């Protein structure tokens, strides 16, 4: 995965609570065979009007937010089903960071597995970022320092699990981390298991 260090981007304002995984990626898109391309279905119900034409008022269609890599939302972002497709869809749209008041656990874990940084902020701090998003002003996310700097230079600190931070900073996915840290232990286990439970490992 691509390491995550700093990010400067105009945040996309999706200022509502309970953005659920169905809203992020509708169930009809779950029959895909790739992590790529899901951006086309992401937020479909917001982006398209009932007749299927793009809604120009939707933030995802507004040119000011084209290329945005940060999404700003309210409380309980990513609630609903455990589908990993929600994280894949956001990544495919180009998002590398979601800032919200809180996140559903499984979504946060899926986002992390796909290199997306989730930042939970208290409502007053979140309001500053949301204001920049609405005014189309860029903010700066610094993962090493664990800060978000608003357009006027205000520095907002955020908390983050040390393990996730390490993985994101170094672009380590869980597979490479396991291989890096435990390859020797896995080989030793297999060696011992061949003696101990040959029927289990011989299969």
């Amino acid at each position, binding site marked *: 995965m691509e390491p995550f260090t700093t990010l400067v981007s105009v945040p996309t304002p999706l200022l509502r609570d309970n953005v659920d995984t169905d809203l992020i990626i509708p169930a009809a898109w779950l*029959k*895909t*065979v*790739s*992590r790529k391309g899901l951006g086309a279905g992401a937020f479909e119900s917001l982006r398209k009007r009932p007749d299927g034409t793009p809604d120009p008022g939707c933030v995802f269609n507004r040119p000011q937010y084209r290329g945005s890599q940060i999404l700003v939302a309210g409380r309980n972002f990513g609630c609903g089903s*455990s589908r*990993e497709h929600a994280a*894949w869809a956001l990544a495919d749209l180009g998002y590398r960071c979601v800032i919200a008041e809180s996140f559903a656990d499984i979504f946060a874990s*899926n986002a992390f*597995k*796909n290199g997306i940084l989730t930042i939970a902020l208290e409502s007053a701090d979140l309001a500053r970022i949301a204001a920049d998003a609405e005014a189309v002003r860029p903010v700066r996310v610094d993962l090493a320092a664990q800060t978000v700097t608003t357009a006027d230079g205000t520095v907002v600190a955020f908390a983050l699990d040390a393990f996730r931070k390490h993985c994101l900073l170094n672009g380590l*996915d*869980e*597979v*490479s981390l*396991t*291989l890096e*840290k*435990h390859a020797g*232990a*896995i080989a030793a*286990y*297999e060696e011992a*298991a061949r003696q*101990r*439970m*040959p*029927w*289990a*490992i*011989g*299969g």
Partner: protein
Amino acid sequence: MSDPRTNHSRNGAPATLYDKIWNRHVVSDLGDGSALIYIDRHLVHEVTSPQAFESLRLAGRPVRRPEATLALVDHNVPTTPRDRPIEDPLAAKQISLLRENTAAFGIAFLDIDDPRQGIVHVVGPELGLTLPGLTIVCGDSHTSTHGAFGALAFGIGTSEVEHVLATQTLLLRKSRNMRVRVDGTLPPGVTAKDLALAIIGAIGTAGATGHVIEYAGEAVRALSMEGRMTLANMSIEAGGRAGLIAPDETTFAYLEGRPRAPKGALWERAVADWRTLASDPGAVFDREVVIDAREITPLVTWGTSPEQVVPVTGRVPDPDDFADPAAGRAAAAALDYMGLEPGTPIEGIAIDRVFIGSCTNSRIEDLRAAAAVFRGRKVAAGVRQVLVVPGSGEVKRQAEAEGLDRIFRAAGCEWREPGCSACLGMNPDKVPPGERCASTSNRNFVGRQGPGARTHLVSPAMAAAAAVSGHFTDVRRLATAGGV
């Protein structure tokens, strides 16, 4: 930490079956209750694997032990004769992609026309891939089925599928231990499916959250392997991470001689080892539930959650009668979706369709139970379709050798090719909107059998009884009248 040679904790404390399997598979103990756990067997199907293979390819990683994995197709495949093309282009794509991926990574694959093809949780045990004491995973929540053999088996997500393919391990947090003890024996006409529904009805769909369940007691010991698989299968509907049954003579008799089971001296050594897996006397369970088998009757679900279940002799409940207001609201919403009025006798509910199949109830014993009811009877006039779908090619051949297919056909049922079929609305076998189906599957969720479909979960014998009556019927009465 424990000592894998003795199965006991190093401090000598008695261990549960789950503790023993966990302890044997620790590759690295990470402290804080989590560990890197070795995975012995990995089952792969067409729906949850494409993105895992895609990631391996992008990262240029091989599969660590291709021989530990078996892939097959079940969710998407039509159950009509296998020489016809697959019409749904997305399903066809997922199937052909699995064919390519398994070839590229050197993984054994049972294709759609393989005589052993079938539902992943039916085929694994048949081949003897499922053995006591193993860790088994699959990108499918009903992997819990394999726990019937005393294997620690559970469903995983797509990123974890990739992790297992690449490393043969998973990073796991240990669950808590829960024991469900079922005393007494099940009355005649009451099956493992009724037992599973009774347990879920008693503890709720969140009853085992955070726990691995061990099923124990006289009624569980008395179950056949087929019955045990039905019970373990629905552990996930009780909220459990996995469900376990300690291996015993029934288990060994089922496994001996299976293609992938150990042979000769290795078999003897394995059985001796498997006998040590049972929970030690005095092992501590974080939670224990006791159920009396003698009180269980044939059951029917009335709502959109497996816990919304009543005896076939009962009535549809009134949402106003629930002590918990949230449960009352859920009941009202379920009745609205199901098109049912409070107070309606269950036996008064007419059905449109019947589905006998799924990884819960598509094994030979299930088909025998259904055929015993269909023998000499006809599907009732108002019933539009009765699908009987064997869980695997092996089940199909066995059923045909016993003449069960002829009984089903003579009664007016459709006898199909193996697959998940109408268990979920992902292949052509669907229940149309608003229609009511008596189903032997495991989930009665909104839209599970197709948009707007109304599902009632029952045992195979009860599904057959509903088919010949046109409405739910207590199979115990029918069986007596028909002399079965």
